[in-house]
């Protein structure tokens, strides 16, 4: 199977970090369900144009986090993910997005009050739009 991971060569993060965080996201986000067979180390390395050493490092890390499991001779599977971990990941992803927005705000000299105002404004605008779309 083809796993939707994209390496961005212009990002400063090391390749293994990029691959690992995206694969973790796909598992915790539920796009890769429990029991799904992952590509072999060589296959994934070839499709991402990275080395087998990097993919092996990623699989080892995710295995020790309990997100994937390797069965001798059968391959690597997505493990069962607790609802709690999934929930934690969901909140974490949103928090990261807010963090980036706040950083941009501070860089451009916004005060906290201004940012709160912008946030409420956007929240109102988007919820109104959604309401309209559903009615």
């Amino acid at each position, binding site marked *: 199977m083809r796993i939707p991971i994209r390496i961005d*060569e212009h990002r400063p993060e090391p390749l293994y970090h990029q691959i690992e965080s995206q694969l973790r996201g796909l598992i915790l986000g539920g796009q890769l369900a429990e029991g799904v067979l992952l590509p072999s180390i060589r296959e994934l390395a*070839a499709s991402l144009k990275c080395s*087998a*050493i990097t993919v092996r490092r990623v699989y080892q890390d995710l295995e020790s986090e309990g997100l994937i499991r390797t069965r001798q001779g059968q391959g690597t599977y997505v493990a069962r993910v607790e609802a709690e971990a999934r929930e934690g990941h969901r909140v974490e992803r949103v928090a990261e997005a807010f963090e980036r927005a706040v950083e941009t705000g501070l860089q451009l000299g916004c005060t906290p009050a201004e940012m709160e105002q912008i946030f409420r404004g956007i929240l109102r605008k988007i919820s109104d739009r959604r309401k309209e779309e559903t009615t």
Partner: protein
Amino acid sequence: MTESAVPAVSLRHATVRRESFTFGPVSLDIPQGFVTAVVGANGSGKSTLFRLLLGLAPLAEGEAEVLGQPVAPGADERYKARVGFLAELPHAYEGGMTAEEKARFASQWYPGWSWERYAKLMRAFQADAGIKLRRMSKGMRRKSELAVAMAHDPELLILDEPSSGLDPFAWKTLLEELNRYMERGDRTLLIATHVTEEVKRIADYILFMHQGKALGFYEKDRLYDGWRVLVVQRRTDAEPQAAPAAELRRVPGLQGMAEAGPGLFRLETNAPEEAEEACRAWGWNILAMQRMELEEVLGCLIRKEEETR
């Protein structure tokens, strides 16, 4: 990919002397279970390295081991049956043979020979076994020789410029077949290539060669992650620098520097994070930061090597 203690190839101060060229001394271990790309200009010693591993170029000094067996005059040569080799240039004396005849000859040499594997490879490469090698196009001959080199599923596969003469479709097939060969995890591939894209797609490690010397042995992704180009410019509010180049020469990990435009400097570094931090602290703006291409890294290594001579 078993974590094997025994490297597929091990050299200790290995030196080969020929009339106009010296290879070595080179000391290095090539790990089993991985793909190592050998990169360097023509005449850098790639082919001599391979001939040395096959016992075709005698060592003047030092030691060499292949698949745990010493390579030396009079030593046990049975390891060769566990190695597959594709030479850079075809052998003229084989021109009169068909691919089939060459395969039959090879099948007697290699205990691991499988006609089934051979037939599968020939099919994958869409090569015709019945034509005389001499009458084949360059690419077709390359493909049928690859099939012969791989049909005994060697523990160590040595390919010298395998993609020369291949069209893009055959090239893609070659990469697929090499990945398939590596799949079970205990095979080792040593591949000399000029094609950067090939290194990017298939290599785990990179060995740089220059004028018979090994300039470095790197894990590929660490190399891509660790070597960067920074373009920097003096901040307008920073104190003017009388000798900016002298200051930048102290940037951590600096491998190369060039003035890219008025007040604009292009820095090559293998300690990108520290370099970035230093530049900012000294009053420079980072306009761009990019991973380096393989050729650029090789260029840096060659320059450094020549400075020390």
